[in-house]
């Protein structure tokens, strides 16, 4: 039998391994770091931020000890500024653009500063935005992930009534179910959502799924506009032999299980874990497996390091966490009797095998396009995703979409938040608003 069991590490070690990856800055640290910001003209960091946060402005406010003002600057562009401060790949976004890289090869720690500014208002529940007078309009939002909640919040701000339809028992989508535990400790995802809903005017119904419990057609009838933030509900298959052998799991499912576990030491952990994929999910599952006590963890990717969609920082994190990363190996088959025992790869025509008692598939997710074909009638799809214009409008009048389920997305929380915001502004104008 393969060696899969819980309690490989004791509770103290688990707690240490799943502590905050980037501990928050103390006030003195934040002031010194804020002082490093040059307050650039037309700042390059802001230019590359998908939500367009005025980064020098919020840092200037940290510098002058105006933390609430700083949080307002962040949250008015990105209501999930708290989560994005934790999960954004800043090393390829704002911090890569920071001119300090040219000056001294060390950017301003924008992510940590953003967390410093936003944590207090979320902890205190300080609402920074008031709702506009009631418009009398009602908007349905399908999905309670970053796109859906961002859209809902902005719509509420603009005076509309919003109803959010959430498939899962808990709210937040990938914020709740998909992010590595050490990136969002202390139930932050739920605390942030409570804060977002605190603005009022947003009703959430949990555990209801499109196509099962309600239809798009019904929503279009009952509401003045609809926003689809469906996410990518299904995991891509490897399409290799014995893929359904016990021990072969979806990384996404295990990450969700890990996030929801009250006692992480009770989770079963393999001795030899093989992760197939090259994105953030692959890194997350590999690092978390290692931190749960797996002895040997391998990430296997079919192409080279530069092709991996995981950022360099993430790849480094895997390596420093003791994960072995292999490139240019194509998965061919899973082997084992009654349970996976090893995985076979092809390397330039040569077979390579790797011992494994657990195999995680992390080669991307897909929208349930085929499963929802009936529901999505009239909406143009491309490569299995929803086609939208630059205002997030779908081809179906009165229906907008955003987040991972639309084409051209970057599969980032911050992009989803921007989609939701842009869609909300477009919906508001469609409903007669004048948000400009």
């Amino acid at each position, binding site marked *: 039998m393969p060696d899969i069991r819980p309690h490989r590490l004791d509770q103290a070690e688990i707690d240490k391994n799943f502590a905050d990856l980037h501990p928050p800055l103390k006030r*003195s640290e934040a002031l010194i770091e*804020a*002082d490093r910001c040059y*307050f*650039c*003209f*037309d*700042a390059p960091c802001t230019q590359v931020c998908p939500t367009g946060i005025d980064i020098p402005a919020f840092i200037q406010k940290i510098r002058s000890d105006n933390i609430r003002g700083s949080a307002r600057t962040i949250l008015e562009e990105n209501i999930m500024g708290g989560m994005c401060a934790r999960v954004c790949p800043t090393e390829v976004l704002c911090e890569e653009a920071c001119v300090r890289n040219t000056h001294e090869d060390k950017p301003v720690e924008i992510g940590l500063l953003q967390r410093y500014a936003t944590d207090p208002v979320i902890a205190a529940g300080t609402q920074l935005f008031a709702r506009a007078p009631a418009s009398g309009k009602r908007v349905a939002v399908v999905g309670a992930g970053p796109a859906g909640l961002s859209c809902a919040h902005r719509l509420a701000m603009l005076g509309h009534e919003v109803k959010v339809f959430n498939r899962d028992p808990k709210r937040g989508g990938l914020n709740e179910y998909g992010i590595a535990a050490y990136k969002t400790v202390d139930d932050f995802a739920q605390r942030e959502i409570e804060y977002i809903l605190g603005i009022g005017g947003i009703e959430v119904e949990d555990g209801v799924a499109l196509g099962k419990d309600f239809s798009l057609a019904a929503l279009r009838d009952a509401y003045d506009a609809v926003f689809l933030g469906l996410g990518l509900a299904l995991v891509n298959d490897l399409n290799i032999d014995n893929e359904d052998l016990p021990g072969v799991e979806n990384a996404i499912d295990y990450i969700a299980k890990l996030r929801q576990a009250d006692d992480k030491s009770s989770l079963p952990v393999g001795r030899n874990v093989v992760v197939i994929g090259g994105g953030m999910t692959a890194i997350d599952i590999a690092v978390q497996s290692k931190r749960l006590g797996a002895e040997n963890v391998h990430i296997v990717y079919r192409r080279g390091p530069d092709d991996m969609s995981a950022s360099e920082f993430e790849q480094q994190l895997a390596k420093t966490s003791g994960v072995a990363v292999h490139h240019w190996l194509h998965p061919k088959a899973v082997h084992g009797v009654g349970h996976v025992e090893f995985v076979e790869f092809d390397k330039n025509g040569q077979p390579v095998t790797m011992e494994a008692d657990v195999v995680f598939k992390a080669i991307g997710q897909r929208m349930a396009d085929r499963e929802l074909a009936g529901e999505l009638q009239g909406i143009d799809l491309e490569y299995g995703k929803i086609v939208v214009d630059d205002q997030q409008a779908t081809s179906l009048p009165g229906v907008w979409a955003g987040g991972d389920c639309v084409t051209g997305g970057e599969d980032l929380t911050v992009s989803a938040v921007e989609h939701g915001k842009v869609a909300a502004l477009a919906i508001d104008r469609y409903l007669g608003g004048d948000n400009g």
Partner: protein
Amino acid sequence: MADLKSDFLGITSPNPFWLASAPPTDKAYNVNRAFEAGWGGAVWKTLGEAGPPIVNVSGPRYSALHSNERRVIGFNNIELITDRPLETNLEEIRQIKRDWPDRALVVSVMLPMNEKAWADHVPMIEDTGADALELNFGCPHGMSERGMGAAVGQVPEYIQMATEWCKKAASVPVIVKLTPNVTNILPPAKAAKDGGADAVSLINTVNSIMHVNYDTLTMYPTTDGMGTHGGYCGEAVKPIALNMVAEIARTADTSDLPISGIGGITDWRDAVDFLALGASNVQVCTAAMVYGFKIIDDLTDGLNTFLDDKGMTAVDELVGKAVPSVTDWQYLNLNYVEKAVIDQELCIKCGRCHIVCEDTSHQAITHTVNGERKFEVIDEECVGCNLCVSVCPVDSCITMQHVPDDEQPLDWTRHPNNPMRKT
């Protein structure tokens, strides 16, 4: 290695760095430590009249202006002159001078405006063997309310009167320490000279309130809820001091007065500023109070290296070097043109030069060239104001460069737009 040995009014010291009259020089214990660390001299904290000692507040005496990393940029105090008995101080001064004969030991004095007080006290102080007296006409708080310190220093006639009384009783050199809390430093300096002063030292502290306490909305700091202005010093006051030193050094009436330079000296470059603008030696307080006496090592070593680099063998060769370059605005050559040049290799593209020029000056720096983020000077618009150089975070990235032309030098006194021009 250059020789840092200093001779100020015949008072010799191994280097030109004296500790200024202030808390670091209030006791033999501190002065001993300073001399062990290598300080060239010390001006003993101001002595007052014999009798019941001065009383200080028992709350905060000091407060600071900080940068975000809490570096002290400016410093404020409401401490009075020494609060120890006169006899104790005199005894300790005598002992220190005996133990450290090669160091300069000057005693700061503050006495009431009557001749008898000076006639009584000056001989007592001289008897300690001290090298000179420094008259404190600058303390801006507390003592000035009692008709001494800045109350004297702000009235040239009083300066002259008290200096004369002191000189009459003294056989050692007398240095008059000037307050910057005046609109023009020249009349006080001239009054000191006319009273017979052998030298002036400047500046004393600048009247100041540091800030407000944002919780209580009272001034900060307070003693039992109330506060009072203090004296401001530290790096932030250096430019004020340098101007006053240079004014005295370049004005015919006062240019022969030896100057002991004081005001924000923190590293050796600050000392070079004072010396080049006319001071013969310098006094330091705040930097020592912020970092301890050990900074003397950087001060002496840095000055020494600098003199070597300049091919100078003694401090005196540096003294006054920059004075001839200081003049009145009206004598500046209005035909001399400089323009900013941005080194594109060094530019990190922060755009600070562009936005300050665009918003507050002459719209002379681009932000985009051929669709690319690029900051270039538009020569036709650039007036050479130096704002971009001042705000650029990269050293030497933006420089001012002279634009040669055939124009003859022309200053305001002869400028055609000047209705009062000399013909």
